[in-house]
């Protein structure tokens, strides 16, 4: 059960030892909800800062507590993290505690001065969100001109010698543009490209026209495999998020970090991933809603929550009996455990059944069927909320619209 860490592995890669010992390898910390963009898919519905965001002293103390748990990487998100006045103090504290620190940003106001000061503070890298080409990106991000500003920020980051990544949500508008996006970000100097399926949480729940349908995973996975191979040849390393998958003949290609036997091993929420909200709420994953919160750092020590809070323990305590729907009897059930909890919960209202899956779509397709998601109830309008969706099973062939069955 032990393994040697290979230097070539990314810092955020969680190995078997990390899983066994439940090291929060990757901590994603929303340090403010203030934002300068108006994204149609924002899970936290960011815009204005939370009324009770952590003070500087509380944030710096939290950095120490995170370090004590053995975390290796902290990703600062928002909102827009750089809108918090003390964000560089937090960056410097993270680096001083021996951890890597990345900024995930829309890049709208990531000015030359901000990048220079961030580099001086020790920021390790920047991930810029790019969700389409030109007007597609501008429309999704809610600000005209934000695509060009994002690309300019990416070039600036590269010029300062920071590691330069791009985050892209795969949605109905960005899917046809992925190849073009790849060309643009390689040209602007990106070396890493993280791709995630747009999840129906927060603002995204209000935009069903943006969401992929389950059968589109049959298009997504071969395309990503193609782009992964081509990207690697051109110096761009493609990193699929936990909600991209699962299995089929493309799994190995898209997840090949150092060898082709790496595959999806299930949700890591509360195991090697931790999420923190700006008010100090501790969650097992940054995207998950409040039922997955283990408490607040103002009331309880981080280690105590990480080791003992029940809402953070669902991944390690669940069994196949907690799965339902297609996932309950899936060939990969024991390893996959219904994939990304965030995605499943946002669509189905609870974990354990995830329709956004290549293997599932392929099994349906072999029977001449496909699954279609239909929204039956709107989200309430708060951070990390979600609507209610039904799965309609219908004939895969176009022109046969009558639903065969509906299940939730």
């Amino acid at each position: 059960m032990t393994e040697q860490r290979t230097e070539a592995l990314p810092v955020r890669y969680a190995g078997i030892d990390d899983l066994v010992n439940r090291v929060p390898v990757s901590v994603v910390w929303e340090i403010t909800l203030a934002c300068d963009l108006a994204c149609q898919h924002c899970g936290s519905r960011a815009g204005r800062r939370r009324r009770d965001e952590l003070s500087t002293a509380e944030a710096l103390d939290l950095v120490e507590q995170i370090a004590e748990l053995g975390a290796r990487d902290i990703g600062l998100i928002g909102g827009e993290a750089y809108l918090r006045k003390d964000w560089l103090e937090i960056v410097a504290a993270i680096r001083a505690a021996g951890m890597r620190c990345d900024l995930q940003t829309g890049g709208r106001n990531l000015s030359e001065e901000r990048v220079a000061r961030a580099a001086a503070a020790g920021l390790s890298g920047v991930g810029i969100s790019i969700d389409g080409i030109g007007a597609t990106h501008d429309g999704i991000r809610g600000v005209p001109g934000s695509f060009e500003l994002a690309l300019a920020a990416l070039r600036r980051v590269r010029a300062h010698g920071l590691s330069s990544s791009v985050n892209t949500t795969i949605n109905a508008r960005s899917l046809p543009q992925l190849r073009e996006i790849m060309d643009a970000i390689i040209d602007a100097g990106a070396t890493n490209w993280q791709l995630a399926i747009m999840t129906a949480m927060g603002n995204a729940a209000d935009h069903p026209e943006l969401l992929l349908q389950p059968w589109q995973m049959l298009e997504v996975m071969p395309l990503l495999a193609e782009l992964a191979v081509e990207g690697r040849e051109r110096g761009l390393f493609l990193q699929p998020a936990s909600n991209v998958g699962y299995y089929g003949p493309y799994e190995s290609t898209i997840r090949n970090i150092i060898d082709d036997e790496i595959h999806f091993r299930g949700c890591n929420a509360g195991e090697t991933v931790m999420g923190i909200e700006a008010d100090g709420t501790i969650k097992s994953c940054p995207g998950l809603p409040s039922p997955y919160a283990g408490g607040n750092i103002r009331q309880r020590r981080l280690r105590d929550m990480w080791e003992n809070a029940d809402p953070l323990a669902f991944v390690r305590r669940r069994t196949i009996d907690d799965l339902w729907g297609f996932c309950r009897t899936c060939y990969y059930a024991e390893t996959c455990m219904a994939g990304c909890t965030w995605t499943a919960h946002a669509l189905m209202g609870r974990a354990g059944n995830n329709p956004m899956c290549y293997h599932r779509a392929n099994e349906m397709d072999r029977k001449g069927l496909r699954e279609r998601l239909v929204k039956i109830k709107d989200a309430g309008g708060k951070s990390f909320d979600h609507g209610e969706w039904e799965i309609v099973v219908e004939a895969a062939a176009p022109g046969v619209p009558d639903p065969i069955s509906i299940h939730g």
Partner: protein
Amino acid sequence: MAEPGRVPPPLRLCRGCRQFVRPDEEACPFCGGDLDTLQADYDKRVADMLHAAAELREAMARAGVTDREA
């Protein structure tokens, strides 16, 4: 740490169709290939390729050609 994390059962890559399969399988449930035979064939191809690359590198070194020049 009182409660260890859950380590999911690892899967095995079929060298015939590149689908992942459960470790207790003998034949691939997707392409029907014999998993051990396919793996052995794959390992041999990799070994042959590495051997050929090493021989090429040695020949280039003897001829005074560097990787960059090649």
